[in-house]
């Protein structure tokens, strides 16, 4: 398998440095926005693995974000549990549910899975409302805003920023290790040549279900940070639009690479603001048209497109040793 190239290491180091410095050079509200970017990036990372590498389309990962967010919120609101226990429990809960839904997803192909997961996303708010005694119903649950622990010389926003990006870093690292190992090889084999993969003894049920579960874990963590940063959860927080937004972010960012998850997080956080600048009367027209244009001209997303550009400009095709796959088209 590929060795980690020095290029990748350099890029990662650069990314870490940027993440460390950014909050000191941007205005404070942007620091807060970047917490959401981290959450989006974590959730989209799950989609990169699930959809990009595993080939399963999910329009329902907002549901896992909802589950994660509510686990954190209910534990904090009802039982007074701290967030550092809540988030891992949210991840566990989503992993468990992810396995179940992953098993169901095995039986559904392509657009059928997209439809089924879309249903999940659409149904989520009504479930959240239905179990009022736990979820607070439509009114939701208010949480205590985060403050930095005593002794840490950071204000609340910077503290939350570093924690969320720290967790994002861990998620990216763990995912990278997973994808580079046996797990990733099995997924790629199953995606590119399922019959051969199976004949070589790769069990599709196990790996595909695991991929689904892991992406659910990531979405759950992201949902936890959503709840913590907003200090409030309600069914409106996790409307079906969130699920669609996540997939849009993944595709715009570049669904074949981890860097795409980062780019996707940035895009879905800031594109609505840009759209509003372009046309205040109808921001969604700008958003929708932008989406279509990107798909028509850069179907492999921002990162994919950039990589292609760099590669064709500066390397002969054979020298492209970047640790990123070429998007495959079915």
């Amino acid at each position: 398998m590929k060795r980690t190239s020095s290029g990748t290491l350099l890029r990662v180091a650069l990314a870490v440095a940027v993440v460390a410095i950014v909050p000191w050079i941007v205005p404070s509200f942007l620091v807060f926005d970047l917490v959401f970017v981290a959450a989006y990036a974590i959730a989209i990372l799950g989609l990169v693995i699930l959809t990009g590498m595993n080939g399963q389309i999910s329009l329902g990962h907002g549901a896992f974000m909802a589950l994660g967010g509510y686990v954190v919120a209910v534990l904090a609101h009802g039982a007074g549990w701290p967030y550092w226990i809540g988030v891992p429990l949210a991840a566990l809960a989503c992993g468990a549910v992810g396995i179940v839904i992953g098993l169901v997803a095995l039986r559904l192909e392509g657009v059928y899975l997209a439809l089924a997961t879309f249903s999940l996303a659409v149904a989520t708010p009504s479930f959240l409302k239905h179990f009022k005694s736990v979820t607070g119903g439509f009114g939701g649950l208010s949480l205590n805003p985060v403050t930095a622990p005593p002794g840490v010389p950071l204000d609340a926003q910077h503290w939350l920023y570093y924690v969320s990006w720290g967790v994002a870093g861990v998620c990216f690292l763990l995912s990278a290790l997973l994808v580079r190992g046996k797990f990733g090889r099995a997924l790629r084999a199953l995606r590119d040549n399922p019959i051969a993969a199976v004949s070589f003894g790769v069990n599709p049920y196990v790996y595909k279900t695991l991929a689904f579960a892991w992406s659910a874990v990531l979405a759950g963590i992201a949902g936890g940070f959503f709840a913590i940063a907003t200090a409030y959860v309600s069914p409106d927080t996790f409307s079906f639009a969130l699920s669609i937004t996540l997939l849009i972010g993944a595709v715009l960012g570049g669904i074949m690479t981890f860097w795409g998850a980062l780019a996707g997080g940035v895009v879905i956080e800031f594109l609505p603001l840009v759209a509003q600048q372009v046309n205040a009367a109808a921001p969604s027209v700008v958003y929708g048209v932008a989406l279509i244009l990107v798909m028509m001209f850069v179907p492999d997303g921002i990162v994919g497109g950039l990589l292609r550009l760099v590669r064709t400009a500066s390397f002969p095709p054979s020298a492209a040793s970047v640790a990123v796959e070429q998007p495959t088209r079915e």
Partner: protein
Amino acid sequence: MHELAQQIVSGLATGSIFASLALALVLIYRAMGIINFAQGEMAMFTTYIAWQLVQLGLPIWLAFGATLVIAFAGGVALERIVIRPVERANQLTIVIVTLGLFIAFNGLAGWFWGYIVKSFPTPFPTSPIQVGGIGFSAQDLGIIVVSLLTLGLITLFFQKTKLGLAMRAAALYPEQSRVMGIRVGWMLALGWGLAAVVGAVAGIMIAPVTFLDPNMMQSVIVYAFASAVLGGIESPVGAVVGGLVLGVVINLLGTYVEFIGNELRLAAALAIIVLVLMVKPSGLFGRTVVHRV
């Protein structure tokens, strides 16, 4: 007993709404094997065009006719301009493009016509109809009749006309069709045009009941998905039957099953989608299709 009958009749009326939009979904799926998430918004948009034409003073039937022509041209244009470039891309790309259309059409309608609920003219009489104490409207009856009529025309078109046969061939065997001289690309565009027309018919029929606003189709489309899947996503007959069945089923579940109530009706409809997809993906009326692993 009386209430049960009323619930069934209301369910059929609501179900016919689902059915009419599900038909359009099925047409696109048959033409190119994709699910058009923007179908509902396209239908809503064409319904606004009809409303606008009526506002401008056109007689109602003329306005509807003109709308269908515009819808057809619009559908064909959309396929040629937006779908064509991504036609050979993977399914994900096409899903995202239709989501983009969804967002854009919704925003456009709000931009042009605002978000205030508007009433939409009905071609049917407004006085209620009473049969044995069960009430419904001429509009309800109209939607069912028009859906069945549309279904009949579609079936005739695909089975009896040369163009219809060519479209089916292009969808099922694109390579062979090309060899035989069928212009496959244009057949797909015609498929989109046809679906847009059926969607426009659905919108015009539905709007007098749900009233006209840019979000009018957002819940209907979910139920239409469920109807199409229930009936078999490749089957026009299935779409209509699926819609009617679904309308009745969610009414009965909502009224008589305590746990579901009115609150989880949508969830129940979605559970139906997932169940059907798992147990019998071809639905009630679909042929079993052999998919590659």
